[in-house]
């Protein structure tokens, strides 16, 4: 359909019948996408729906298989991000593209360095530019700090500054709120408002309905690679949007039995531990987990959650304090011994700690039980028994594709998580630690994981949930503890907690400062 040149120019971005295929897999199927100049436009879809793929083409990371892209009315062929940057497109990726050991300024100027003769860097000049941009848009950063030392929220601001430093007029933010507290999300909303006030166009890729309602004017919904529609945000409710996103009615009602908690199964007393860089990460942590309950640890990333889980699983030494499990002092116990005692953990990085990618699904399903009967007899593996066990679990947990000889690395994120869940749950642990159990999963897989965790709790076991997702925390938790700077600053029952309260506590309980 022909578009008159006039109306085409009203769109900052127009993508016409864009299709993207990776081999046999179609990620985007003839998508039409228009963004008006100066608007805040949300791109909504589940994990894996194809929204990032669509925007990656706008940023020049790869070309469309077919279809056209127009920027400010002009047809463009973007062979690389450099082309996109030259045309005023900037992108803040979901996983930040920051070089950890470099400073904020170095990261911002990388690729467009201010340099003198012979390429000698002129950092002072870049520093001044960064400070100027920073104050103009209200993006406070410490230009001399190293990325590995600054907070996640500041890192995000660095990423936005990177775009602005290159003169971006169109900014794409990929899942910007996934790592932020409620207060930081509000702050981000202000920043976006400042940007559009200065004439910038903002596209937000997200699956968070609340943020769309708060920040966006229009919303395009993508489902399984196909555009479902574009709507005015104000005229639709969250459940309308959810239905468009998932394709069926989604209920937000809590379908959980009340907890029937018993006696204490895990207890931490005055635990101190250091992080990888030798700095204090846990500063006297104390809390209990009871049988038959889900205790959630809420907090901003980087306040000691990872170290806490490592201390509990035995992968990190404790400087002082003790951990009691089933009445025993397990402070000095090895990981293997804790596993024997009935401790199970779903690690936060499933590919790093949860699976051996090069092993088959069957091999992965016996990781903790590799030396036990019936899988191993006098040191020799019983392959038939391992295969039988694997097939049983594949069926029970609906792991796809249902072949125990497949390599774990070839499974999708959701199925990988199911393998880990299957393995940990069927060992019948007394305490299950779940770290970010639904990170990167689609709605169906998320529902499944939640159901299973509640099941474990209903069987009278203890569940310790560590999650950065407040919605998940509020949904699953029976009790909540808030971690801040390596200490527990608050213990709440679920009924006492709400998003606002938790957000404040997570930020240190004082007035907002990010």
């Amino acid at each position: 359909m022909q578009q008159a040149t006039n109306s085409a120019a009203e769109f900052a971005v127009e993508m016409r019948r864009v299709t993207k295929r990776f081999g046999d897999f179609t990620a985007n199927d003839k998508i039409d996408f228009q963004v008006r100049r100066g608007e805040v436009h949300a791109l909504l879809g589940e994990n894996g729906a194809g929204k990032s793929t669509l925007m990656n083409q706008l940023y020049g990371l790869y070309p469309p298989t077919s279809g056209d892209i127009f920027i400010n009315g002009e047809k463009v062929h973007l062979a690389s991000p450099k082309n996109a940057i030259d045309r005023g497109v900037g992108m803040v990726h979901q996983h930040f593209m920051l070089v950890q050991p470099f400073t904020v300024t170095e990261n911002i100027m990388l690729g467009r360095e201010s340099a003198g003769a012979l390429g000698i860097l002129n950092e002072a000049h870049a520093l001044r530019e960064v400070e100027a941009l920073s104050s103009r848009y209200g993006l406070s950063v410490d230009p001399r700090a190293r990325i590995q030392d600054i907070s996640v929220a500041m890192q995000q601001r660095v990423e936005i500054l990177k775009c602005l430093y290159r003169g971006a007029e169109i900014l794409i933010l990929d899942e910007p709120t996934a790592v932020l507290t409620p207060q930081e999300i509000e702050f981000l909303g202000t920043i976006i408002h400042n940007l559009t006030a200065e004439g910038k166009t903002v596209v937000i890729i997200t699956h968070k309905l609340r943020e769309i309602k708060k920040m966006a004017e229009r919303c395009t919904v993508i489902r399984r690679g196909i555009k479902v529609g574009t709507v005015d945000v104000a005229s639709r409710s969250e459940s309308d949007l959810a239905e468009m996103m998932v394709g069926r009615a989604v209920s937000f009602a809590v379908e959980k039995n009340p907890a029937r908690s018993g006696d204490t199964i895990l207890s931490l007393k005055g635990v101190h531990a250091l992080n990888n860089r030798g700095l204090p990460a846990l500063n006297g942590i104390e809390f209990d987990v009871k049988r038959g309950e889900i205790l959630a640890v809420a907090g901003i990333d980087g306040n000691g959650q990872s170290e806490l889980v490592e201390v509990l699983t035995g992968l990190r030494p404790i400087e002082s304090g003790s951990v009691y499990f089933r009445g025993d002092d397990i402070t000095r116990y090895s990981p293997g011994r804790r596993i024997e005692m009935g401790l199970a953990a779903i690690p936060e990085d499933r590919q790093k700690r949860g699976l051996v990618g090069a092993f088959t699904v069957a091999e992965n399903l016996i990781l903790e039980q590799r030396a036990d009967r019936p899988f191993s007899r006098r040191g020799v593996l019983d392959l038939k028994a391992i295969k039988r066990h694997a097939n049983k679990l594949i069926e029970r947990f609906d792991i796809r594709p249902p072949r125990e000889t497949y390599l774990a690395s070839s499974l999708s994120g959701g199925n990988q998580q199911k393998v880990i869940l299957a393995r940990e749950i069927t060992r019948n642990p007394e305490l299950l630690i779940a770290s970010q159990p639904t990170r990167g999963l689609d709605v169906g897989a998320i529902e499944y994981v939640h159901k299973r965790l509640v099941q474990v709790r209903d069987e009278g076991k203890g569940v310790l949930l560590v999650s950065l997702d407040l919605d998940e925390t509020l949904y699953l938790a029976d009790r909540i503890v808030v971690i801040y700077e390596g200490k527990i600053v608050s213990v709440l029952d679920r009924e006492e907690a709400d998003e606002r309260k938790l957000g404040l506590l997570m930020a240190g309980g004082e007035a907002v400062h990010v």
Partner: protein
Amino acid sequence: MLADSLAFIFATTLMYSAPLIFTALGGVISENAGVVNIGLEGMMTLGAFVGAAVGYYANDAWIGFLAAGVSGGALAFLHAVACVTFMADHIVSGIAMNFIGPGLSLFLSRFFFNGATQTLSLSLDVKIPRPLNGVFEQNGFFDMVFNQYATVYLALLMVVLLWFVLYRTRIGLRIRAVGEHPKAADTLGIDVFRIKYMAVIASGVLAGFGGAALSVAIVSRFSATLVSGQGFIALAAMIFGKWRPGGTLAACLLFSSAQGLTVFLGRADLQRLLPIPSQLLAIIPFLLTLAVLVGFVGKSRPPAAGGVPYEKE
């Protein structure tokens, strides 16, 4: 006596360190760009041969030195093609270089020098010169220590130069970014492949120089056992030096000083005082390195994306 001994040790240290420094710096620049180069030994060997052969035929050691760099770079180009364009395993490709380099060197040596596995010597007056000859009082302390081949001073200069490039220039920032987080660099429009190619070729050039620093400076010809393992020592020095030019220099000096000490203790006058068999003396540098590693260095951390082929999605 003490001054004499110290001078001897310092002098030997500096002299032996030049080939190691060049080669190890080659490793540093390559690995900072994220490409592991264990083929330094092969590139060093090839450089040693080419430097001696070209130097002999051109009757000029400097021409040989430059040619050595070119040859090292050419071999490194193969490594770059494998690792960067074809996503090869860096280690496997490096091992291939360690077969091809010496193999080619000996092959060509036999070809150009009548079937011999060594080249003919350069005459003493066309070897790499000693620029500070005659400046100091003959056989005095300063003369012994500082009257070195020009390649020694070049090597030290190279350390400063590489440090400056890596940490004070635009290209250095990009090289390090590519080694730490190639995806980030790519999304900012940096040509990751080109930077990796440049770094790997540069590493080969430097390794070639290292080989020539052996064959046309310290000695005056190439032979089959000339390099034998020093490329690996340079590799160790790089890891020891935590992939930074300054640390690498220190590691090279530590190593060659241990060798200097070994030669020193092997001298006849000292053997009378302290009769240690020469074979046991020879072990000192290696055990010393291990001891230092155990005691001081601890776990070393290479660039985050080192050894991982970069694949655009």
